[in-house]
């Protein structure tokens, strides 16, 4: 499943997409420790699979919470993406 967390407002689209099919075979859950804001958690989803998700309290403000990782110039690799070796995480902005 592709789970898109975030929002679209007048200024743009801000979604973090987690391809949860990749989470199934992941045992180290790098996303949890990789994100300096602690935005990820691993849960058992509605289909009883162990998957990563963005915590509820971050979903309406990810543009602001991710701002530190996304300087306007010379953007380094995002810590969440670097930590997720199966490559499940993508950002729309």
């Amino acid at each position, binding site marked *: 499943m592709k789970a898109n967390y975030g929002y679209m*407002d*007048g*200024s*743009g689209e801000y979604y973090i997409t987690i391809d949860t099919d990749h989470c199934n075979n992941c045992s180290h859950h790098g996303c949890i420790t990789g994100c300096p804001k602690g935005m990820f958690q691993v849960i058992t989803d509605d289909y009883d699979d162990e998957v990563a998700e963005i915590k509820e309290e971050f979903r*309406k*403000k990810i*543009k*602001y*919470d991710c*701002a*530190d990782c*996304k*300087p*306007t*110039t010379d953007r380094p690799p995002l810590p969440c993406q670097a930590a997720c070796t199966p490559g499940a995480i993508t950002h729309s902005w």
Partner: protein
Amino acid sequence: MITAGIDMGARSIRVLILKDGEVLARGESTAGFDTAESAELAFNEALEKAGITKDQLDKIVATGAGRESAPQATDTVTDVGAAARGAHEVAPQARTIIDIGAEEGRAIKTNGNGKVMDFAVNEKCAAGAGSFTEAMSRALEVELEEFGALSLESTESIPMNAQCAVFAESEVVSLLHAKTPKQDIARAVHDAIADRIVSMVRRVGIEPEIALIGAVSRNPGFVDALKRGLERDVIIPDDAEFVGALGAALVATDE
């Protein structure tokens, strides 16, 4: 040399006339339905105060969101360019400039000579600019002028969940119904907007010194929240809302 800068903001239009680097006069009007007409009002006010006629102006540069619709202007400069140039004049030590207008917020990093190195913008969403505070003061039924001071009286910081100006309005109304003191709500509103501005500033990097310009700098509640968020002091120049117009007038002189 006499030049004029016109800042065509979404809500207000501001005009500033410079003579050999000295401010001769300022003019201001509310941006109405016909912005060209509103610009004319502010422009004529400034001319009158300066005691000159339009023909005596060597150059007129417009800036702001509506800069293309200023009929008097002979040239234009971007908001970012004007803010950086103007801020360099009034707060030369500043390397980071925060400019908050009614509909947009901007963070600009300069090289110390008024040259723009980098910038970030919050736009097209009322939650990230001055409109947010305006809408909330309306919901609270407090005059905008008193709204900022009110939040300084707050004793408790409460979070706001809504990240949208429309939903936040309902949240403010339910907080009121729940008998939350108005000053605490006011503080929550200012903290929320300051949070969003601070994260934008972080994207360009926070370099001391920091100058705050634009009309929102008049709001002590916002300034207080911003300082707490940045964990630093900010410089607020005199006539902070005219810095854009000043920048445009200076650009006119430079060229």
